[in-house]
């Protein structure tokens, strides 16, 4: 009953009023929500429609025939009215039998017309069914192409795109923006064509029915046009404001739910509610303002529509009574054509608004599709031949933003089969070294050689086939454990997978899962322990049998049994491979063939554990300070 109490309380006291002050729209650097249509955008749209041009043309042709057929209805109405009124107006024969015969004849003629009318409409309906299937299928196929192209583009784009684009935006591109495009490709084009055709055909039929009535109402067309131009922009802006206001309401709400811990900790409930209600009041005011505008716009159009009706009735009445047109049927037909002509205009405002919103989404999707990846294969890239695993950094300088380098002049060589430990304080650039070897980014200066080949000159595919990677996040895809392990080699059989896992020593842990290899991994592998996920990732890398292995060691602790298992597997995994490891465990560091100590993007010391201790530099100092604080040697 809390709700009811709250509502009552709300009724009883002068709380916030639901109607606040409307929002004044200020330009922001946000993504635009509205986009007027221009030729450039239209051209980009048409490029995607072209493969289905035949379907679209067929759909349009069907639409023309269908609309022309449907537009015959007023003609039938006119004929029926004329026949019946002529019969009623004619002096009845004196002979009852002749009168009955004449009546029958008239009824038969009406029945004949109704029959013909039924045939015409049935044909139109069947054509419509066909047209719907043709047009919507074409539109959905365009959507299909777009969706796939978008995904393929996301696969092509470099890591830097992912770095600089907010996650929510990437997801929006693939969801709401693609759906906005659907509004255009599937029903937008259909609606535009149909409405234009209806107006054209209705106008033509009006002209054909009675040219004088057509001329009498054609003067209203500029008025309609002017009213549309006047209101369309204003309404568009009003809805834009309303949309913005609504975005603020929903953003505020989402933000406070997401940050509920902070809200609770800082006791902000009352204040937040006040802010929220202010936003809500603004939203209400915006919507009411838009409704007011629309409430003027619609009746304006209706009144112009009425003016047309009045002209047709009065002038048509004059023409009919003076015998200038035969029968009142023509007046009725003209009246109906005018209504049909007005129909699309009355719905145009809203449609236009939605179209502009869709266009904004469309443009963003096209822009994403046109983006060129920063790291891509050179045109003359050759496949990398099978390698031994020799890696050389030659004076590499790199920054995620070119003007802010995070690695300065990095220069080192790793012999095949060596394990290189990267150590250093947080932010010293360890992960960046790994990312460069994986060719996620291109260095700004210097080059990276693998077995003597500059990795810029080889195809990414051939490079990555010989490379394995395990990151802290231990990322697993939705699917079975089996699918995850053979991710790099989808053709591997379960037997091969088992063999690999046994060789690595991870098999027992995998077999212990509820359904073994066929255990489903939940979204982000949530239903597995950290250790299990790590072992699966190791097995995945092991099965790929890379020459170069990149590892960002996990920081979080696992229980000691799993920890031993992980360590044992890791030892086997790195055997015979050139391994780069961002090390967080002392044992990993101590066991490495070479330790690179990084500080603020520079290598300040290098060598084995023993060498570095003997050297007595930064590494030795750190090591002594923390590990030998109590004189006890670390347990590694």
């Amino acid at each position: 009953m809390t709700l009811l109490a709250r509502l009552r309380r709300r009724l009883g006291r002068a709380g916030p009023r639901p109607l606040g002050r409307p929002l004044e729209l200020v330009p922001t650097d946000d993504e635009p929500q509205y986009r007027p249509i221009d030729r450039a955008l239209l051209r980009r749209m048409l490029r995607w429609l072209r493969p289905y041009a035949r379907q679209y043309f067929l759909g349009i042709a069907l639409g023309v025939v269908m609309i022309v057929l449907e537009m015959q209805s007023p003609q039938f109405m006119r004929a029926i009215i004329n026949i019946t009124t002529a019969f009623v107006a004619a002096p009845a024969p004196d002979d009852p039998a002749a009168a009955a015969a004449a009546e029958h004849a008239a009824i038969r003629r009406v029945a004949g017309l109704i029959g013909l009318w039924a045939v015409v409409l049935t044909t139109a309906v069947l054509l419509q069914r066909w047209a719907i299937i043709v047009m919507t299928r074409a539109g959905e196929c365009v959507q299909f192409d777009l969706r796939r192209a978008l995904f393929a583009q996301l696969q092509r784009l470099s890591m830097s795109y992912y770095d600089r684009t907010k996650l929510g935006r990437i997801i929006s591109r693939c969801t709401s923006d693609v759906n906005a495009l659907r509004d255009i490709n599937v029903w937008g084009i259909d609606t535009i064509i149909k409405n234009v055709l209806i107006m054209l055909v209705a106008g033509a039929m009006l002209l054909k029915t009675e040219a004088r009535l057509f001329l009498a109402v054609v003067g209203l067309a500029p008025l309609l046009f002017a009213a549309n131009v006047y209101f369309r922009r204003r309404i568009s802006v009003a809805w834009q404001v309303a949309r913005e206001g609504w975005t603020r309401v929903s953003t505020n709400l989402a933000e406070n739910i997401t940050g509920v811990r902070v809200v609770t900790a800082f006791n902000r409930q009352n204040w937040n509610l006040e802010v929220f209600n202010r936003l809500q009041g603004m939203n209400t005011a915006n919507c009411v303002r838009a409704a007011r505008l629309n409430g003027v716009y619609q009746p304006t159009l209706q009144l112009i529509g009425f003016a047309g009706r009045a002209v047709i009735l009065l002038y048509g009445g004059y023409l009919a009574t003076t015998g200038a047109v035969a029968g009142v049927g023509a007046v009725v037909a003209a009246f109906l054509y005018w209504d049909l002509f007005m129909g699309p205009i009355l719905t145009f405002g809203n449609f236009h608004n939605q179209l502009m919103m869709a266009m904004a989404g469309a443009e963003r999707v096209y822009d994403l599709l046109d983006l060129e990846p920063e790291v891509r294969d050179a045109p003359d890239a050759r496949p990398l031949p099978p390698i031994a695993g020799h890696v050389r950094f030659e004076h590499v300088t790199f920054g995620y933003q070119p003007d802010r380098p995070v690695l300065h002049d990095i220069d080192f060589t790793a012999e095949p089969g060596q394990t290189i430990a990267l150590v250093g304080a947080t932010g010293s650039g360890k992960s960046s070294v790994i990312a460069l070897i994986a060719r996620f980014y291109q260095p700004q200066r210097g080059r990276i050689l693998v077995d003597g080949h500059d990795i810029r000159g080889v195809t990414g595919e051939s490079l990555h086939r010989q490379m394995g990677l395990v990151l802290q996040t231990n990322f697993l895809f939705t699917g079975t454990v089996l699918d995850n392990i053979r991710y790099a080699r989808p053709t591997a059989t379960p037997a091969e997978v088992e063999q690999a896992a046994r060789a690595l020593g991870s098999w027992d842990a995998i077999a212990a899962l509820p359904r073994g290899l066929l255990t489903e991994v939940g979204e982000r592998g949530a239903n597995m322990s950290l250790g299990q996920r790590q072992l699966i990732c190791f097995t995945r890398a092991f099965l790929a049998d890379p020459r170069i292995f990149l590892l960002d060691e996990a920081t979080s602790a696992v229980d000691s049994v799993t920890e031993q298992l992980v360590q044992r597997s890791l030892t086997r995994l790195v055997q015979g491979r050139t391994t780069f490891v961002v090390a967080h465990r002392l044992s990993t560091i101590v066991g490495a063939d070479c330790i690179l100590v990084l500080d603020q993007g520079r290598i300040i010391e290098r060598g084995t554990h023993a060498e570095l201790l003997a050297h007595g530099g930064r590494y030795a100092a750190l090591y002594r300070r923390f590990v030998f604080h109590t004189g006890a040697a670390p347990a590694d």
Partner: protein
Amino acid sequence: MPDPPLIPAARPADLNDRYLLRWMFRFLRPVIGVAVSACVSLVLWIGAEILTVRQTAVAVNTIERVRVRHVVQPPNFWAWLWSDAAEAVGLERVVLVLAGLSLAMAVLTYLREVVNTKLSMYKVFYIREAVYDQLQRVGLRFHDQISTGELINRALSDLQNVRAFINTAVLTTLEIVLIVGGYIVLLLTRTPWAALLALAPLPVWLWYTVRFSRRIRPAQEAVMRVGDRNISLITENIAGVHVVKAFAAEPHEIARYSRNCDRFLRRVLQRIRMFANYLPVVRGISMAAHLALFMLAGVLIIKRVLQPGDILMLGAAMGAILGRLQQVAGINEQYQNAIVSARRLHEVLAARPTVPVAPDARPLPPGPGAVRFEHVTFGYDPARPVLHDITFEVPGGRTVALVGPTGAGKTTLVQLLARFYDPQAGRILVDGTDIRSVTLDSLRTQIAFVFQETYLFSDSVAANIAYGRPGATPADVEFASRTAQAHEFVAELPKGYETVLGERGASLSGGQRQRLAIARALFARPRILVLDDATAAVDPETEERIHGGLRAALRDVTVFVIAHRLNTVKRADLVLVLESGRLVQAGTHDELMQADGHYRDIAAVQLYGDEQFDAEGEFASHYKRLRDPRTLAAARAGAAAAADTRPEAQP
């Protein structure tokens, strides 16, 4: 002590559809006045529309009457119109009435547009206010149970469903009844046969449209399911983009996604086919109904029962009736959706606060900030405690460091302090008072938090810092900011303290965000300050300066600090070592380093610290951003919320 169920056990009898329906209609109460005026303008509008249709028929009949009489041959139209020829006068009068009706319709259209919008918006205002407030106050255990995305969904789209349904249930139903009834009456005034004939197709029509809406539902759900799968594939692909690239699995991923696109297209086409098959049938029924009426009209005109204008009226009436009845299927569908949504909304609104305040709660009395845990046991799930029998005492003004591996219960422990959760056993005292006996407001204003994940709001920097005490002076803000070493970078922002942050504003690095969070906590002038891994993303040098500033500013404040860097821990007056929810060691750094135990082991592993500091500044790399799995879920929820940005009142 068993925890009370979070959401009151909904006995099926309580939460049946009828109950929910009544519950939804309660939302109308605060706006009953607007609702009544909306109904009145609807009734008037429909009246005007029906009279317009009637008057149009009269106009045509008038023309026909004078045409048949054929009295004069006026020279031209204008002369005819202005003459006092009876027929011209008659037609003028009819058209004048029509003009009056059109004007009335125009005014009523305006009224309806405005009043309907007001009804819709005012109503939703109060519901949303209630939901918002409830979500703020219900307690964190509720938020732990239902994911953020799901809650946002409930507060946005479920609420929209309910709102749309209430509108429909009131206005659309009324409209359907009045239109159908009104036109039938209109037809009855002309001839009972027409009314009868108009009623004949209605059952078939209604049956078929409702049946179709029921049939297309599974097809629509299938489309949605496959569509959702598409989105999951994309989200996952984005999250795992490193793995995809590192294993050269792009072709594999594209093939997988394409397969799902194929499935999606097939489902969509299936739905289109269903619709394409449905359309000829309904249009066939409508056509048959219209043509039968026209046939009847033809015969009756010949029989001199009807006049030619009536044929227009019949057509208009039939069209209006069938058009409105078609909406019945939509109402049914809306009802189904609204019931589901109402149940989920009810769950939110009816949830009991998870940390109940005693009826006789007093404000927390002043004191130095001494904290005492007495045999505290707590689990998010009462069956699985994450803290076992924790007992310790801290005098006011001291600094306590909590250390231990991930998942040891450090964060949980500090959250109990501010009653984010209540322990299942034991009690917590602040300055000798059991925190369960004081008001939540007074307790929480005394405790400030800097959380592990920094959460800032899309507002100005100043507003974010002054979050705990809105309405403070800029000088206060700057002071807190300087203490937290944030002033320097804030001053460099485009608009300084007025720079807007967040999704739609400037983005800051992790370390900068943490410093703002520290400033925010300082600004609240707490008695107890909790720093939960608050400087993990700050470089060590700045961290030193922050701690220096804090020491000066917080001489009398009790500080709980969860940290991984030894330097931070070393400064504490008391170090508590937690492992698997148990307090395993307590003492100063020096004492603990001398003793054999976990602390020394932990200290050893801390050699190079966590890799959380993002040196890339504003460009936190994709991979680092994704280390927190919640990031992606939040982004997805955000994108979904943003997708539904069509202004509410838009038709």
